[in-house]
């Protein structure tokens, strides 16, 4: 499922306000639906509104909400990155430069910004820059930027309550005793080379 489309449906489905114009103005629409996640009320400290929304969209593509769990938007990934950009010039330059590269590249191919592009145009670009094997002089800067972006979105996600829930982290609690569940031991041994020993 395309999360942007789903967000739009949730936001506007009840009132039946889905129009062709809306589909062409994803940027605007995203601003409208931002109240669906905690980061929506966040005022960017460093990035411009457009940069911040582009980053939110990117984070949502990298770690989307799906049938298993919530995604990067609910983990506050864009807020985390914007906050650190406000504290570190080098990082800020990586993100303003990288986001501008995304826009310029999309502009070059489709005459729209990354945020305004259709979801399939957005993923087509990510399919190029999300893999080192695609490295060409034209894509190198994008690949490098995406690597930063994926790393920090993953960092933000898995250090958040929703990310910890996704992988099932249950620790750092005060316990009166420690034990190891036998079913977990049996599960691993059965699948190991020691199953019959």
């Amino acid at each position, binding site marked *: 499922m395309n999360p942007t489309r789903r967000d739009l449906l949730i936001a506007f489905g009840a009132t039946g306000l889905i129009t062709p114009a809306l589909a062409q103005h994803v940027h605007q629409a995203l601003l409208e639906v931002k109240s669906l996640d905690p980061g929506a009320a966040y005022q960017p400290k460093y990035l411009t509104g457009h940069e911040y929304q582009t980053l939110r969209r990117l984070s949502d593509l990298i770690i989307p909400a*799906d049938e298993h769990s919530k995604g990067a938007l609910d983990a506050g990934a864009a807020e985390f990155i914007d906050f650190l950009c406000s504290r570190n010039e080098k990082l800020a330059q990586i993100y303003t430069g990288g986001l501008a590269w995304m826009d310029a590249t999309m502009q070059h191919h489709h005459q729209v910004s990354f945020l305004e592009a259709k979801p399939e145009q957005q993923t087509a670009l990510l399919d190029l820059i999300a893999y080192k094997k695609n490295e060409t002089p034209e894509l190198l800067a994008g690949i490098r930027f995406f690597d930063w972006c994926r790393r920090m979105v*993953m960092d933000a996600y898995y250090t958040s309550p929703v990310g910890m829930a996704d*992988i*099932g982290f249950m*620790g750092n609690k005060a316990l009166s005793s420690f034990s190891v569940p036998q079913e977990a031991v049996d*599960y*691993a041994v059965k699948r190991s080379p020691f199953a019959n020993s």
Partner: protein
Amino acid sequence: MFQIQRSPQVADVVVIGSGAGGGTTVKVLTDLGINVTLLEAGPMLNPSKDFKEHMLPYEVDHRGAGPNAERYFGLQQWGYFEAPNGYWNIPGEPYSVSPDSEFSWFRSRILGGRTNHYGRISLRFSDYDFKPYSFDGLGTDWPVDYDEMSPYYDKAEEFMGITGTKEGIRSAPDGVFLPPIPPRVHEQLVMKAGKRLGIPVIPSRMAMLTKSVHGRAACHYCGQCGRGCRTASAFSSSQAMIFPAMKTGKLTVLTEAMARELIVDASGKVSAVSYVDKRTRTEKQIRCRNVVVAASACESARLLLNSKSPLFPNGLANGSGMVGRNLTDTTGYSLSGHIPALEGLPRHNSDGIGGMHVYVPWWLLDKRNKDFPRGYHIEIGGGFGMPQLGAFSADGSQRAGYGSGLKDYVRQRYGASISLAGRGEMIPNEHSYCEIDNSVVDQWGIPTLKFHFRWSDHEIKQAKHMHETFTSIIETMGGTVTGITHPEREAKGVSVGGTIIHEGGTVCMGDDPKTSVLNRWCQAHEVKNLFVADAAPFNGNPDKNVTLTIVALAWRTAEHLAAEMKKGNA
């Protein structure tokens, strides 16, 4: 006008440094009714403020990256959530390394020193570790032997609280143990692999309380010992030794007090300690009858070398020229592996005590045809660790891409990797030492250290053996090696010297004043009221972490000093 403030009183004993050795000295002496003044170069520790063991990353905006994103640019010296314990580089306190060497010097500047965060692995040295030359002709025998040390290991273990089991293995002598803790799932697989390969995997010996001892609460199994422990259920000299000593009224603690020099009188005894009060940048002196230097191996050597006088032109107690020599660190090499049998493991809390629940003691002691002397132990990592920044970066770059598939990949592999870390013995060599760099002083004008460090073939071959062993363990588990766990320090096949943070040997013991600095009581041959109580007296650095032996040896030294004071000899 420059004026040095001198204390009117004369302290019975001044202890310099508050880590494992200083803390033990303070505890033993104050328990015996002796007044002690303790100098610590860093601030007082406040566990309720300084320890963050139960914080989750999302409780701070930067999630642990540091307020200025330091982590992302390699500028974070230590994890944000870790106990405040020290750094590789301290502003205003430089050190240098000779061009043909690599060495990193970790220093702590806080009450309790490195014991606030250390791994708490607590292994007795074995009989042959005290007599290495007699064992295989390498190194130097200690003037003490295992039988003399054993009662002090008993005292140290009983007081600190060490988990373990009696195994009857010569390379891993048994001690006074608290109940062990059950092995985690991945550790049980390592045990099975060990059985197949003939490698013993036994309950770990760790200074965490599986039972309450000496008024310290039993462990609550949050697994965050490296961040410090507010309940003092993991041993630290600050909480277990120094805070209780402060309550006796026998201990005076001077924090932010950086020792500059030991001053000797005409008779050649230490009469005062000169130090910088960092808060006011003033020079002070405290007069003393006895001094115990426990500033950490290299810092203790530096203090002696910087204490020059007409009687001791080469540095205090350094007639032998041995101060700074025989610098050692533990060898380190580690491999990570992916274990498919652990993929999708049913979720549970695998924290337990921080660090490993089982380990591998050296198991080839009797094998004579290997190509390196002595040996190493293996530390085992794995489980469902608390997600931290960077924890899944390797997953991201290996799988690449984005979207739900990336999430599935991380979820499947979470908890399915293990790490095996070798910690081995370095044989002291003539190329490894520290000396004063007269061209550089620190911000208080104290001349700094220059390091020379070289691994020999012994250590290089040992690390190769680690690589082969770890590969075979991982593959026997049905797994694949994913790479070196710490490429930043082990890329050349063995750790950079100093990075395992087990420095020792710079103020060595011996019966002969021509070849050693300290006698069998860790008392300077040439200066009878000067004692050393950290890892500096260690004649060798076996494959057993240094802290337990620092505590046991300092305990013995302190009892000797107290007995001498009682007899009127000190």
